């Protein structure tokens, strides 16, 4: 019985969301607002159990690490975001978190630039590696705006657009397939798990 009620609730809410394909309607709006509330409500106990208890409550109150009272007080300053006169206090926890950008400079340079360059600098021993090399260089030059894209240089950067179009097409195809597999999952749930029309 519980399983039937559970499936019925899930099916109804699924249909409420799908009703948006016809047009915006009260059923969709109800489901949409319910989703926001449930998602936020779902996060609260999880943050409490997985973040507040192990990193604030347990170290301070059970292990006696009283230094952590300072960051906890800094964290409380977030709440002042909503006050008119003291909203500037919320900048302190943000600033503490933003300090990590110092690590971001060498890390992004390493992971996104140097590693990519190292992988691009392979021996050109076949047509594929040549194509990858030409594609990478032409795309990088396409994003170099300090020189006008004219003449031979413009023609070469134009090759970069073609490569990017193929890349965007591949990403688009992958995204569509991911969404369609989700759609198939929902249809299988309604027709298979709930109605038993497909095995």
């Amino acid at each position, binding site marked *: 019985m519980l399983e039937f009620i559970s499936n019925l609730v899930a099916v109804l809410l699924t249909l409420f969301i799908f009703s948006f394909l016809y047009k915006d309607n009260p059923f969709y709006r109800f489901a949409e607002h319910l*989703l926001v509330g449930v998602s936020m409500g*779902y996060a609260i106990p999880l943050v409490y*159990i997985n973040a507040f208890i192990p990193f604030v409550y347990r170290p301070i109150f059970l292990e006696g690490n009283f230094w952590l009272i300072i960051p906890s007080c800094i964290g409380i300053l*977030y709440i002042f975001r909503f006050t008119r006169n003291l909203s500037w206090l919320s900048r302190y926890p*943000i600033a503490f978190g933003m300090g990590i950008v*110092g690590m971001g400079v060498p890390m*992004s340079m390493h992971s996104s630039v140097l590693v990519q360059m190292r992988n691009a600098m392979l021996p050109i021993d076949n047509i594929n590696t040549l194509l990858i090399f030409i594609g990478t260089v032409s795309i990088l030059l396409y994003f170099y705006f300090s020189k006008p894209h004219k003449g031979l240089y413009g023609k070469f950067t134009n090759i970069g657009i073609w490569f990017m179009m193929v890349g965007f097409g591949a990403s688009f195809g*992958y995204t569509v397939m991911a969404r369609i597999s*989700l759609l198939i999952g929902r249809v299988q749930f309604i027709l298979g798990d709930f109605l038993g029309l497909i095995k």
Partner: protein
Amino acid sequence: MKRQIPLIIVIGLGFLFVAHTFIPSKTSVDFYDWWVSWSKAISPFAVVLGILSLFMVHGTKIQRKAPNWQYSVVTLLALVVTAFSGFAWGTNEGTPFLWLFANVQMPMSATMFSLLAFYIASAAYKAFRAKSPQATVLLLAAFIVMMGQVPIGAAISKWIPETAQWILNVPNLAAKRGIATGVGLGMTATSLKILLGIERTYLGSD
């Protein structure tokens, strides 16, 4: 006090992190561990900000009886009931909290994402109607990659999955590598601007 001290904290910590990356020593490891433990103690309070924000937005709508205020009641009620069920009965298997997740949150979010399949298809039709040679290439690449993922593609011709794989491994790799390098340079430049105090928008306005 209002802007200068937070800015000094960002710049000071930022340069210490640069030093931490380039100078491996016990002191730099200790500094990193200290920052992580403090950040973990600060982060749970950010959720309070989100809850308060949601309550303020929807509470104001209800109070002013704004158009469609009834839906705001649904949002707040759902939030309170879900959170309460998590605190009252725990978050383990078989609790009302997980029931809400499995039968309310999960089906709705999966359906919400699956809706995009329809909108992506209609947007693609409008955007790519093969208006230019480049749009045609995009459309073709997307079509081949999609067909390469499903059994019907291989049933039509064995070349379709192979071509799809070639597109992913060669032109797509070149495109991703070029874009990733550009993004990396952009991230480095933005991080440097924050580190040197040129970029301050994260502090908000007065």
